[in-house]
């Protein structure tokens, strides 16, 4: 498979960059973990004006089936919007929707060297760099939310929702309706609570990363965050959506230093300072419950993909099982808080 990718991508590279000669694509390695796209690391070598050049690249190709149905143009659009900003993102080199090259659409970006993501289930993933990484984590999220969406030069893929919380919940409830393999009493009860107890409207509509969390950014040995990745679910909406997701206990444990970084209170203060947005504690509970429901929707889709043999990658089987169980446990705890506010289940 990797040899085929090398040969076919070399042909594409030559066609797109006719100024490059003797193009060779080598060291193609599929990287683990991309549940929404197939991700390959590769090296492109070529002659430019007679001089040898090498580029280390990441190719992200749409799978035949995916957990998250998103247009790669949305992901690329967000990455392009934040090039050369306070939000570190990889440089985008190619976006190709013509399936003649690699059977499915793909995009290519620079490989961020000497950096790695923190592992989600590893205790203390950042070690001594915990505070440094944590401060940047919240500063960068503040920068994403502090950006004026009118100045980001976004494509028509990004629509401004009238009611961000309704649009977000509608989307994931539809996914659950379409993909559930078995009735979900807990998730349905949580959705009803979310509908009955809407959050206050956001102070302003911002870019929402959609999957901003520990594990979705790269860190170098010095503890610098070198790239924010995985923008597949980005959209315009309520910035608190990202806060709820970032603090979701499924990846933001333990409570003292969520995601192996800094305490939530300290992180939210940094975020508020950078974004200029106040955190509404009542709204945060709504967005935390929403995050668990959204997570469940993704895991429910995953279970269906695997059960129907549309995607037999082990990560799909894992996603349909362990995170779904973890999010169910998280929903039980969150709904205890929600019901206590209403005088039930206290």
């Amino acid at each position: 498979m990797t040899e085929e990718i090398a040969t076919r991508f070399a042909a594409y590279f030559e066609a797109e960059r006719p100024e490059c000669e003797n193009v060779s694509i080598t060291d193609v390695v599929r990287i683990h973990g991309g549940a929404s796209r197939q991700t390959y690391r590769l090296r492109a070598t070529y002659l430019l004006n007679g001089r040898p050049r090498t580029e280390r690249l990441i190719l992200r190709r749409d799978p035949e089936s995916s957990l998250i149905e998103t247009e790669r143009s949305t992901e690329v659009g967000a990455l392009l919007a934040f090039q050369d900003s306070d939000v570190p993102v990889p440089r985008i080199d190619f976006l190709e929707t013509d399936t003649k090259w690699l059977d499915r659409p793909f995009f290519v970006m620079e490989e961020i060297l000497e950096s790695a993501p923190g592992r989600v289930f590893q205790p203390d993933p950042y070690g001594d760099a915990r505070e440094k990484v944590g401060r940047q984590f919240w500063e960068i999220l503040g920068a994403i939310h502090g950006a004026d969406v009118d100045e980001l030069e976004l494509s028509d893929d990004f629509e401004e929702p009238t009611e961000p919380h309704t649009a977000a919940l509608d989307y994931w409830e539809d996914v659950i309706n379409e993909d559930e393999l078995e009735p979900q009493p807990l998730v349905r009860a949580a959705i009803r609570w979310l509908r009955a107890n809407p959050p206050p409207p956001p102070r302003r509509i911002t870019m929402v990363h959609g999957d901003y969390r520990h594990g979705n950014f790269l860190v170098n040995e010095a503890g610098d965050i070198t790239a924010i990745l995985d923008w597949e679910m980005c959209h315009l909406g309520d910035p608190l959506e990202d806060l709820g997701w970032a603090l979701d206990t499924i990846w933001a444990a333990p409570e003292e230093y969520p995601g192996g970084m800094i305490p939530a209170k300290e992180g939210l203060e940094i975020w508020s300072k950078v974004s200029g947005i106040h955190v509404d504690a009542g709204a945060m509970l709504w967005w935390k419950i929403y995050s668990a429901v959204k997570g469940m929707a993704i895991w429910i889709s995953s279970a269906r993909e695997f059960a129907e043999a549309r995607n037999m990658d082990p990560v799909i089987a894992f996603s349909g099982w362990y995170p779904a169980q973890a999010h169910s446990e998280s929903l039980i705890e969150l709904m205890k808080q929600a019901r206590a506010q209403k005088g039930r289940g206290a």
Partner: protein
Amino acid sequence: MKPEVGEILTGVLGAVFTDIAPHLPEGYSQGSMSLIALLMIFSAQEYDRAADVRASENDAMRALFADVAGSVPDPDLRARLEKASHKIDESLRVSALNASNGGLKELLIELHVLAEESDTSWACAADEMIWAMMAEFTAARHLDMPVM
């Protein structure tokens, strides 16, 4: 059958981690092998309890339906709750238990919606019982993640 399925799944993990995974190419192959190993660990946990978890859930839902059916004002739902409460699981095959579990959970959702919409004492009590039940069901399916 000896060894038991759970023992087999956990027993071969040593070979996976020491003899197989290190010889795979780094990246996707090794990452996938680690996930397969985790799935084996979870499968071993589930093997022992799968029938018990499902049968217990089914019994609990039937008992709840028997308890509250008489107070349900909607005659159609009341009749379906009563009918479901009288059934028993004749087979302990997981597939059979899953089928009845799915039907009972659909009824549970309907009952919960009705209970939420009412302030009567039976509805408040049913709401509390359903939440307690969902917490128990969730806890019973907990998966122990090994330290990585």
